[in-house]
């Protein structure tokens, strides 16, 4: 079923929307959650919460890209869960990504920039990258993929992917500092 029809089911409050969403995007949402939580059970719960959140959001929201919308919901729910539980339950792969994220934070700044300004700056910076660099960056820090998975999907070596990510982090940090963005 195409995305437009699925969204219409949500707007009509037809519960078949959930069935169709699960058929088309269930694995996708599970993949995103599992990358963060590394637990089948927790991932299942987050995917169920995603459906509930999507049901509550539509209407009035009408996403242009359903996959991106669902992916963001799952990601946010999974990150919140990880953040809530991570003092007790650390996932090494996720902890590594969080530590890498620390390298993106620019020095200085007493006041944190608002989230919209940070996202705009990030988008602008991503626009300066090549498509491949952008894909590598977002697969790592948005889709929370492992290095080997990224390398495999793009036919690169792992060390190549690590080097590219390291350079992007360094350049991004410098870019944010230049733009006066603080976190």
């Amino acid at each position, binding site marked *: 079923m195409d995305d437009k029809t699925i969204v219409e089911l949500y707007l009509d409050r037809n519960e078949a929307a*959930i*069935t169709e969403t699960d058929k088309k995007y269930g694995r996708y949402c599970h993949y995103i959650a599992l990358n963060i939580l590394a637990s089948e059970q927790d991932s299942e719960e987050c995917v169920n919460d995603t459906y509930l959140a999507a049901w509550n959001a539509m209407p009035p929201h009408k996403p242009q890209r359903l996959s991106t919308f669902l*992916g963001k919901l799952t990601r946010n729910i999974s990150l919140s869960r990880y953040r809530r539980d991570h003092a007790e339950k650390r*996932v090494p792969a996720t902890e590594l990504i*969080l530590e890498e994220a*620390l390298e993106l934070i620019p020095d200085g700044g007493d006041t*944190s920039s608002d989230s919209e300004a940070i996202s705009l700056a990030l988008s602008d910076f*991503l626009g300066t990258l090549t498509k491949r660099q*952008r894909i590598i960056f977002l697969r790592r820090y948005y*889709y929370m993929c492992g290095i080997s998975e990224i390398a495999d999907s793009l036919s690169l070596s792992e060390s190549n992917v690590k080097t590219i990510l390291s350079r992007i982090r360094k350049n991004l940090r410098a870019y944010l500092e230049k733009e006066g963005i603080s976190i």
Partner: protein
Amino acid sequence: MKNDEKKFKVLNSIGDVKESYLSEADPQREPRKGRTGRRLLAIAACVALLLTSLSLWLFIPYSNDPPSVEEYSDSEYYPLIQKINALTFTPNRFRNNFEMLRSKFFSITSDKAAPESSVEAADGATGTLTTGTYVEATDNQVAGVIEEDIIKRSDRYIFYMRGSTLSVYTIDGEDSKLLSSYSITHSDGSFSAYNTLDFYLSADCRTVTVIENGYVANGGYLSVISLDVSDPQNIAEKKRISISGSKISSRLVDGKLLLLSGFMISKNDLDFSDESTFLPQIDSGNGFERLKPDRIFSPDELTSSSYTVVTKIDEQTLTLEDSVAFLSYSNSVYVSKDSIYVTRSFSDIKEDDLSYETSRMTEISRMRYSGDKFEYLGSVTLEGYVKDQYSLDEREGVLRVVTTTDTRKYKRAKATYAPLSMPENGTSANLYCIDLATMETVATVEQFAPLGETVRSVRFDGNTAYVCTSVELSDPVFFFDLSDINNITYKDTGTIEGFSNSLIDLNDGYLLGIGVGSSRSVAKIEIYEEGEEKVIPLCKFETAGYIADSYKSYLIDRENSLVGVAVTDNTQSSVEIKYYLLHFNGSHLTKLAEIPLPRAIDTRSTRAQVIDGHLYILTEGNFFKVEDITK
């Protein structure tokens, strides 16, 4: 803002970049036509050549049974192997290779097992200077059960850890100074410590025992490092040992270090012919050995492929005396004077064709450590999950536990789930009393919190339990009378503004709450007392900002009725952090000191001590200040 919050803020902001970029990077996205055309041509050529055999390979259905492990039936671990095999087997989502190839882009990485540990020993110099008499700097939950911390002291020196650097300060009022610093390093460079290291100071103040927990690229790794501090100006490493896994918690009791660590089984590396891939390894000085089967406990049905390993180590010699393991991931741990209680949270699922219900449950396992060897004494399963170690307390043969209950129901349509808002969905709180002789629940107070609230903080003090629950920015605080568990009664404050992340019992029956006030940008410290009919908020101190939810960062001095906290005020144009020292005189909270702290510090690392009328404050960034509070 704390580093942890910044990391999540960065990741959240990345989620709001241009949608076209996110879509472009989507792993399930089809490759470009040009590349696809070339691949299809190659596949078509292969298919043309191997059409018949390929078709057979594509459509032969997968088996949905776990692989056979009969070849290990002679192993003494065979029952454990069978359980792990069943747990780690994931029935294929696809029916055959054709469906699997269609979704080839969803390859998922798995965690790796911890690397082999190494044992290093270093002979350290021993000094002859006395380092004074031990003074407890940490507000331990149970008297005599010392908790790890980043500050310890004697009557002569304060030991404080920043990152992996131990600093020693003299205690000399306003003439106090930094005496020495010692950085803890790893010789092979394959280990990095992500957080500030916790440690212990021995009763004779001559030894500091550091617990180093960190991550390498493929797993967790734990080191216990013994430092000779008998001459604080010449600190030297005496010995270190390493254990596979990552730290959960630790305690020091009568010179014995109780270490709880987690060891995860990696599905990718699992090989039942290699015991190191599914059994925790302990090095007691004679090379790595696996735990014996009778030292491994597991529930009948596994819900986690991670072990909680409990190890007893002699503080002075770092000799491993005993180890046991639970095949379950531990959440909170409570340690009483003779037992360790390990908790495991899981979801209990009930389903039929029409509905799906999931309830959070907690299994609590008890292990006595006071003998020569650990002794497993049984488990109990309760509804709900515990917030932290303060949610459990052992007294006179009864274990008291407070949980947040969380049950959700979904209406089910065939194999998927449609969300359904049902009035009975939601969280509340239960209090349990468990007879430790039988590990059975003998008393329960169910659903005492308003629906939708969760437990924010718990404290037990003798026969009284204090519980704060809230949903957002209002809470009741409950006082439970547990003197007769057959007739448990309780009072509460009713709904009041704010909630407490920590509840602390003060002398004379007063209760101190530290947390949030009327909004999330108001920090609140409040005193409660028990009235005839209800619990009464007696007095409070509020200021703009927030207090980190980190109990050990609070100064609690019951003897002098003092409380100290660091408050981060981010309501102004620039962030300000101040340390407040308050005194409770039986009716009011009075501010004794208000001291600016450096900006951009993590207030969870702030520690303070009141010694002979002086307030000593230590934080990140080498900040150290002494203030005379008698003036």
